[in-house]
């Protein structure tokens, strides 16, 4: 990646020609695997950058690199729908801060990548009405994972220098990274500005990165990090840049949660993860058994309660009045809103609106929404205490390898939600985690998830590098 950027800056590479070829390849991948929902004008941008290179004015840490953005990230003038029919045709008036920061570093925005509608799912099978589901790059009968499925698939398949902006609410970066066999880096909540992110659950949404290796994922995260006046929940980051983090493992305390590698886990996944742990121990890490009872028992329920409560308010604005899908306007307004919403929201979006509305209604609010908020605080405390004893926590990312579409059809919604059991707790606590490939099971990639305390991205990166990702 660094060599490519250097060559692009000095004009050793014909950036326009390179971009043409990359688009051609991406189009071919897309035809086969359906990762892309909309294309940005990459060629114009490449021409613009080429001129800079020719006049010796090329600058930026991502000069000439093609960056894809998950469909829920606003890209000015490029159709942005969070893969929902209700936003069909919507072209944002501004760039998301994370997108703008890439552009400021010389990146070329390539395309928008497909996802579960508004992020509602872990398998990219809940794409909006009329939007095709992406296929796993290793086996087209299987899911990419989700919700950042398109981003993960494209990252795996692209043979040109490419980085992906993805987003996680309850595991939407780690999950598809694991299923597609790439690196997915989810930062601390607040590290990256959410300005320009189409909200799923604002208190949980985190923009992160995907790449073929840890170093590139770290490079992109460095660029998009930092306090933004447009997002009051964003924070300034301190400390060294992540891309320079060196591999280190000797003497590090690795927390293991026994039940995450116990029953219910796919045997192949267990084998890959225990092998990885063994390798880290061989290199000088110390394994410490941890118990996180609150997170393990209540994480899923807490996550879904909070996420759906917030989601049901976020989706209220989509009513066919000001942007996106619309219909013949007619009074009374509530019937019109209902008509547009009924026709354009997918099944899972409707389910989450109903459940999320229920959990915040008078009479249920205390038992669900407020209780969940209290448990989240407990889970944050539980992790904080755990990180007094260990430096990082390692678990499998997903309990299984990418399921086939047929297998997924047999799952009811609850079994479907259970697949998130390992990813939701770090997401609830807002702590950074990285999923890296650690071998295969039945030929499908297995993901290893390394989790660290708030704003300790460098720790999870040094362990990931020590593993050799």
């Amino acid at each position, binding site marked *: 990646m660094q060599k490519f950027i250097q060559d692009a800056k000095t004009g050793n590479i014909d950036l326009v020609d390179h971009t043409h070829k990359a688009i051609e390849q991406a189009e071919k991948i897309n035809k086969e695997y359906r990762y892309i929902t909309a294309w940005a004008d990459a060629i114009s941008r490449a021409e613009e950058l080429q001129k800079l290179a020719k006049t010796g004015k090329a600058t930026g840490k991502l000069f000439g690199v093609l960056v894809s953005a998950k469909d829920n*990230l*606003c890209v000015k003038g490029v159709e*942005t729908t*969070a893969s929902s029919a209700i*936003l069909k045709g*919507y072209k*944002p*008036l*501004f760039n*998301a801060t994370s997108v703008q920061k890439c552009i400021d570093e010389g990146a070329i925005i390539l395309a928008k990548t497909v996802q579960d509608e508004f992020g509602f799912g872990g398998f990219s099978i809940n794409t909006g009405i009329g939007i095709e589901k992406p296929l796993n790059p290793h086996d087209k009968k299987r899911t990419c994972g989700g919700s950042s499925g398109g981003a993960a698939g494209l990252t795996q398949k692209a043979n040109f220098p490419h980085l992906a902006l993805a987003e996680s609410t309850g595991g939407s970066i780690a999950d598809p990274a694991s299923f597609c066999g790439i690196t997915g880096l989810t930062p601390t909540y607040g590290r990256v500005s*959410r*300005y*320009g*992110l*189409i*909200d799923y*659950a*604002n*208190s949980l949404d985190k923009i992160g990165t995907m790449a073929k290796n840890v170093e590139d994922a770290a490079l992109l995260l460095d660029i998009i990090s930092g306090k933004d*006046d*447009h*997002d*009051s*929940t964003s924070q300034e980051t301190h400390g060294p840049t992540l891309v320079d983090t060196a591999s280190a493992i000797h003497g590090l305390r690795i927390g293991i949660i026994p039940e995450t590698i116990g029953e219910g886990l796919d045997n192949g996944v267990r084998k890959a993860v225990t092998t990885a742990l063994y390798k880290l121990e061989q290199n000088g890490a110390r394994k410490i058994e941890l118990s996180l009872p609150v997170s393990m028992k209540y994480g899923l329920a807490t996550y879904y309660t909070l996420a759906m*409560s*917030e989601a*049901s*308010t976020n989706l*209220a*604005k989509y*009513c066919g*009045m*000001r*942007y996106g899908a619309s219909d013949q306007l007619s009074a009374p*307004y*509530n019937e019109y*809103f209902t008509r547009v919403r009924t026709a354009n929201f997918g099944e899972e979006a409707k389910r989450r609106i109903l459940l999320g*509305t229920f959990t*915040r*209604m*008078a009479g249920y*609010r205390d038992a669900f*929404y407020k209780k969940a*908020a209290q448990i989240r605080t407990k889970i944050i405390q539980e992790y904080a205490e755990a990180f007094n004893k260990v430096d990082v926590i390692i678990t499998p990312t997903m309990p299984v390898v990418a399921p086939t579409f047929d297998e997924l059809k047999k799952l009811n919604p609850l079994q479907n939600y259970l697949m998130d059991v390992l990813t939701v707790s770090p997401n609830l606590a807002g702590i950074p985690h990285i999923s890296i490939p650690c071998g295969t099971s039945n030929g499908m990639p297995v993901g290893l998830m390394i989790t660290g305390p708030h704003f300790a991205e460098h720790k999870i990166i040094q362990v990931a590098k020590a593993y050799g990702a």
Partner: protein
Amino acid sequence: MAHKFTTDAIIGLEVHVQLNTKTKLFCSCPTNVAEPNTAICPTCLGHPGSKPVLNSKALEFATKLSLALGCTIAPTAVFSRKTYFYPDLVKNYQITQYEVPLGSHGIIILDIGKLIRIERVHLEEDPGALIHESGATLIDYNRSGIPLCEIVTHPDMHSPAEAREFMKKLLNILGYLGLFDQNTCVIKADANVSIREKNYERVEIKNITGFKEIERALTYEIERQKQQDVRRETRGWNAEKGTTYTLRLKETEEDYGYIVEPDLPLFEIDPNWIRAIKATIPELAEARAARWVSDWKIDETDAKIIAANIDVAELFETIAKKIDPVFSSRWVRREILRLLNDEKKELRETQFRAQELIELFKLLIDKKITDRIGQRIIEQLAKKQFSPAAYVKEQNLVMVADENTLEKICKTIIEQNKKAVQDYKNGEEKSLMFLIGQVMKQTKGTAAPNVVKELLKSLLA
């Protein structure tokens, strides 16, 4: 059903005040009046990906108002989403304060000594404005995101007049704090009203603008409730017709599904910041008037009227510190306020300054000029600044009290107005006033009226 209430009518108010910040509550769009749908951005239009950022000035203004109303300030400002679907509400939820209001436990005291408790003062965003025009409904989103302060009272008012007085006092405080511009900002109230005859079944009247309308609407509604069956409902107020009408029945309490606004952090409120804001609150009208009455022995009505407007009050205080406060208060109330009232002007729209007025009042107190000349000079001082003393000298307007001079003039006037003289002698008192007027006219208003009166009386005796 047993009630704790015993009075004929129970009234509680929810008042919405537009705060006069320069920019909106959660974005940097301007708040001043503009062409429809021009003061808008992705945030106040609720576009996907936009995020609210709190305008700290609005928080400061709302805190100032809360403090002036005697409220306790919450240690943190927390915002919530209130979800309901309506075409003027861009996100279909409103960012407001729910569980913890910014201010609570405030008070306004009516003149008869009755306490009206203020339950809460909180900040929220205004929705856009629906405009019904020639059969169509148009929406202006310029208003979307304008900061509003909501003031909720306990049901402590018992008559429309009390509600009016409450609103008037509130407006006065807002004016004193400089938070509210009467020309551009809007104050609206929702009133809850119930009467004993109907077992205090509660009716809410929405969107009443201004304190006079509050009294009208409540007077109408109480009369209506006496004559009709009362249902629990929300009614609208038609100011043109002077009637209320059903908007919707309240069979169940509305459920807004409040959640904490996750795009905004909790704002810790520093006690030092509160102290600093408190220090900027001026002495309010009632305290000022009371002080004038006790320290300067000013007529209570004059004091209240002068204190009602902070600019006039400040002007008066400056003058009264230099010269006779009682004299000054009469002239400020009778001449300056009358003039402002007649011309429908704010003090700052005139040229009045303490410096010239002090000079003028001194001339009056020292009997250097007549009241009539004084009035004339005040009218001119409203338009431009000049030295009244120099002007009097220049224009030869010094009061003439010399009996010899005035006697000559009086005699001439008697000569020239034989009919009036005859009428006076026949017992018509007002003919004397006419004759005095003629002398004043002859002397361009400089004749001392009491001297003229005595002279005429004796000449005609």
